[in-house]
């Protein structure tokens, strides 16, 4: 359940460290974002001397939330933190490596590049 003002970790090597959600993409008054939703975020913390810098507005896709993800087969998955991967307008990740286990839902939402880079898919 990510909403504006939520801080998220960055789970790729795109040189941003921490993001703050500004907007949940979807409907006009959409409240919360879950795994697989795209958000607009501002970079709160970045690795110095890199193309991405602090207070830059980027889009990201959420890949893990502390709020449980419920599946149709009854499986419930909870992660340890809220994390996102920085993407561009087409949905391709900006980084080249993804850290952490990725939920299978991302493949069904056409984030295939992210899923292929992921070390483990749950």
């Amino acid at each position, binding site marked *: 359940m990510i909403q504006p003002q939520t801080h998220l970790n960055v789970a790729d090597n795109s040189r941003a460290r921490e993001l703050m959600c500004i907007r949940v993409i979807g409907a006009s008054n959409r409240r919360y974002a879950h795994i697989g939703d795209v958000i607009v975020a501002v970079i709160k913390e970045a690795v110095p001397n890199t193309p991405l810098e602090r207070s830059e507005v980027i889009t990201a896709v959420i890949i893990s939330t502390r709020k*449980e993800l419920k599946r149709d*087969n*009854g499986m419930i*998955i*909870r992660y340890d*933190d809220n994390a996102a991967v920085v993407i561009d307008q087409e949905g391709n990740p900006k980084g080249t490596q993804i850290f952490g286990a990725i939920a299978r839902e991302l493949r069904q939402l056409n984030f295939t590049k992210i899923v292929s880079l992921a*070390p483990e898919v749950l």
Partner: protein
Amino acid sequence: MLKSVGHNFYTPFLSLFDQLVLGNCVLLVNLRRMRLEKCWFCSSTVYPGHGIQFVRNDAKIFHFCRSKCHKNFKMKRNPRKVKWTKAYRRLHGKDMTQDSTFEFERKRNRPERYDRNLAENTLKAIKKIDKIRSDRASDHIKNRLKTGKVQRQKEARKQLELGIHLVKAPLALAQDSSLCLPKIKDNVSQAQTEENQPMEE
């Protein structure tokens, strides 16, 4: 979600919603499968549709069978110190730890080529092995509790000897020699019936 996979293997334990098309050599297999996991905290089996999986940041997955175990985990309790968990019981010798029947339950990640006979025999074997294992486990517990039982009986007899005056007045015992203290025998049931005699009279 159906995906075509190019190899011939049939992965067992398919979910209910799979459609298996036995074509020439290509099987459509749902890559999600139902697996019976073990609860990380209490070691009971987690069936599909139950419990929560927690993914830690180092990608280690913890399965929990119910919220009780999940909450204990969040409290950072060590299952080896929590009395009702299997981990504690095994560690402290309450439950059977080593047995050949445990070998059958080892996790094997190799997919087997589907063989109807193999599947049938496996199902039969599972039932049998389960019974054998649970019988052996209960025997282990029975043996463990045996010494305590014998000890308690000894103490009961001792108490009866010392407190026979509560059961029957010592004067009555002295007068009527037929009302003597029951002879101590090792047989449990016999001792019990004999202990009852002074009471009835």
